[in-house]
């Protein structure tokens, strides 16, 4: 018999022998904590209950216990406040699930949002406890764990990369927070690479380069977010390079994040790139449906709220890649709940999330693609449709075909026709070639991304 069952039977018996008011007052939130060698420990919610049960009801309780098991000799009582607080919380939640006192919409700012630690720049809101681990990020998470265990030793430096809004910053900050918590003497600094650049620039301007050097080189754990923004900033890179070396030589932990692997960061100095590549690199992919639901649930739990599963499922299955967007969608729903004091029905949910979910596909046209590709490679758009087989024209032409295929989902015959009336097999060949090339050559992939960016910037 488990302790719970035992106590249920005892309670059932006691309920019959005392008044209802007394029963509710004195036996609410009580339970059996342990049962060992005939010694029973009963947890009670407060000191009043303890005194009362000890002095007034101990006989009834003993008798009820002995009826169940003859071995029970002694009962003792301990106060367990937590239980009471928890059950009070639960009760509140059930009673008023929609009365949100969390200020999601409130214009009034509260302290929670800004409890960033001035010294480390870490936001305590990010912790590993609310970091949902699944297959898409488990490598990064596991590596983070060992970094926390022995900062500066196992995985140093530690490089995390992954797309926008999938939890890089969260993980980075959580590592920092955890190390800070476990070892308060460690000096931890979290900076965005933009902040780092600013520091370098203002140090140069003020002629205080030495001060900056000293500052960054005395750190035990240096965390730099979005390192890709260092690209192209030569002086900053140089300064970072030296800081990096100093810290690395002294076994100080360095943690970096970027939205792409080091190889793919353009205009990053060779010596930095090679240093980045020699490190522990963990990538974070995209969460699957189940993970997305778990993330939503964690988020809601943090806010002490409840939402029906159907709504969560809807959000999770419609917002697919970006966790930040996922939270955005959730916040919209919560705002609705707050404003109307009711849980939205399915059709309302669809309406509320229309903007986020049916994010209108960025549109472009075949003419546009041809124009942009020509511009990018600095050739005449006519050259693309011409018959020339010059090497510097063939490649752009193939790129244009590839983009027509993948951005517009055009048919091969259509592509061939638009680029100078070529055969559809030419188009197939071009697309395959570019796809292959893209896989083998990261800088070429960057090139394609740049063209894509231009494509949509121009049209929008």
């Amino acid at each position, binding site marked *: 018999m488990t302790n719970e069952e035992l106590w249920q039977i005892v309670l059932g018996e006691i309920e019959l022998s005392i008044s209802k008011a*007394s029963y509710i007052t004195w036996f609410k939130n009580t339970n059996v904590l342990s049962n060992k060698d005939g010694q029973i420990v009963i947890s009670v919610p407060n000191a*009043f209950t303890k005194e009362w049960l000890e002095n007034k009801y101990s006989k009834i309780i003993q008798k009820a216990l002995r009826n169940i098991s003859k071995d029970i000799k002694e009962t003792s009582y301990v106060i367990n*406040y937590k239980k009471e607080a928890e059950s009070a919380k639960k009760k509140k939640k059930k009673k008023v699930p929609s009365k949100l006192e969390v200020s999601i919409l409130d214009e*009034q700012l509260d302290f929670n949002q800004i409890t960033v630690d001035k010294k480390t720049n870490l936001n*305590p809101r990010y912790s590993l406890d609310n970091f949902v681990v699944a297959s898409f990020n488990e490598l990064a998470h596991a590596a983070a764990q060992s970094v926390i265990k022995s900062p500066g030793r196992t995985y140093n430096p530690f490089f995390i990369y992954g797309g926008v809004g999938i939890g890089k910053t969260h993980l980075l900050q959580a590592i920092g927070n955890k190390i800070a918590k476990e070892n308060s003497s460690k000096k931890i600094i979290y900076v965005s690479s933009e902040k780092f650049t600013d520091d370098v620039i203002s140090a140069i301007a003020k002629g205080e380069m030495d001060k900056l050097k000293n500052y960054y080189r005395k750190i035990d754990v240096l965390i730099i977010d979005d390192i890709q923004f260092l690209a192209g900033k030569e002086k900053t890179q140089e300064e970072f390079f030296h800081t990096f070396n100093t810290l690395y030589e002294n076994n100080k932990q360095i943690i970096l994040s970027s939205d792409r692997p080091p190889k793919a960061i353009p205009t990053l100095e060779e010596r930095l790139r090679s240093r980045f590549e020699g490190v522990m690199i963990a990538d974070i992919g995209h969460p699957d449906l189940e993970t997305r639901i778990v993330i939503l649930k964690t988020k809601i739990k943090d806010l002490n709220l409840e939402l029906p599963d159907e709504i969560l499922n809807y959000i999770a299955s419609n917002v697919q890649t970006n966790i930040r967007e996922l939270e955005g969608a959730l916040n919209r729903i919560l705002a609705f709940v707050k404003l109307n004091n009711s849980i939205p029905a399915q059709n309302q949910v669809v309406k509320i999330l229309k903007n986020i979910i049916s994010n209108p596909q960025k549109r472009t046209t075949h003419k546009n693609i041809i124009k942009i590709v020509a511009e990018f490679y600095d050739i005449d758009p006519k050259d693309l449709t011409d018959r020339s087989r010059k090497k510097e024209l063939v490649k752009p032409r193939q790129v244009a075909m590839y983009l027509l295929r993948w951005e517009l989902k055009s048919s091969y015959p259509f592509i061939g026709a638009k680029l100078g009336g070529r055969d559809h097999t030419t188009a197939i060949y071009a697309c395959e070639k570019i796809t292959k090339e893209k896989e083998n050559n990261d800088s070429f992939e960057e090139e394609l991304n740049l063209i894509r960016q231009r494509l949509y910037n121009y049209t929008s």
Partner: protein
Amino acid sequence: MEIICLQENFKKGINVVGNIIGKNLTLPILNNVLLTVEKKRLRLISTDLEMAITYWTPGKVKKEGEITMPAKLLSDFINNLPNKKIEIKTKDNSLHIKCENFKSVVKGIDSKEFPIIPKVRGGSILKIEALKLKQAFSQVVNFTSLSDIRPEISGVLIDFNSEGIKFVATDSFRLGEKTLSIKNETKTSVIIPLRTVQELIRILSEQGRDELVEILIEQNQILFKTPDIQLISRLIEGTYPNYEQLISKQFETNLILDRDEFLNTVKITSLFSSKINDLRLKVIPKKSLVEIFAQDTEIGENTSELKGEIKGKEVEIIFNHKYLLDGLNNIDSNKVILGLNGETNPGILKPVGDPGFVYVIMPIKL
């Protein structure tokens, strides 16, 4: 039991203990106050199972004993009696009260049903003047969060450390910290439920200036003790938020304003605030001027100007006028310092010349 005491003393006693009664509906005995005659004194006890108040009053004891009485009736009755001797006597489960021309019999409940008041066995932490304690509590108590969603801020923090005692309360929108520099050896911190603090303030304000309050703490319990009164309460479990980092020491903009003038200007301008109580402060250091502006589409608008010593950056910030007033009302120096760090960071309000009080207030988003 049988005792003779003065109406005045009885009245005071029932008023001290009676206030917490009547909030529990499940257990009828909790609506009663326990009267005990022992050791030449009459003792009154009330409880709501979160805290308990005990009060002793002198009297001429004839026979010891105890009984519980409905608090509401007893207090209404005693309060209206003339200030003469009252004779109290129990017979079975009723109380016979005689005072000048009045003679009454009140039905009570057996004292055995009354909850047993827990004892605090922990050591004494310190002794402090009642008035000082009351003032410290009253200066911050209004900032306590009224919701139970985050239990740890639904009470007032008392932080004992070697330099002094800190009283802190916050509802996450503003925060007040009062420091009393009293030497003490204990290093501990406890969170006292809001209701307990309110009750304590009420009781302490009736105490004499020099009366000492002794504080005893045991795991989960706290006891406040004067010669006549004891208040025991549960403590709130949990860790108080790490608030210290909110109180910045350096400001981008630093204002020194006349407290009364500032208070008055905020009051006047706040009449024109919209529903979210917003009040826009435009700080112009060059002109040593603050423009305080409020507007509501249905009411109208108001702009007030306030002169002061202002240093630092120009800034425009919006505050909830209620929070601003709450802070100013708890400062009694002639001049106040308002320190700002941009429009989204908390502002700091503190009296000039008194390092013991700091008020932190979050702005409203622009």
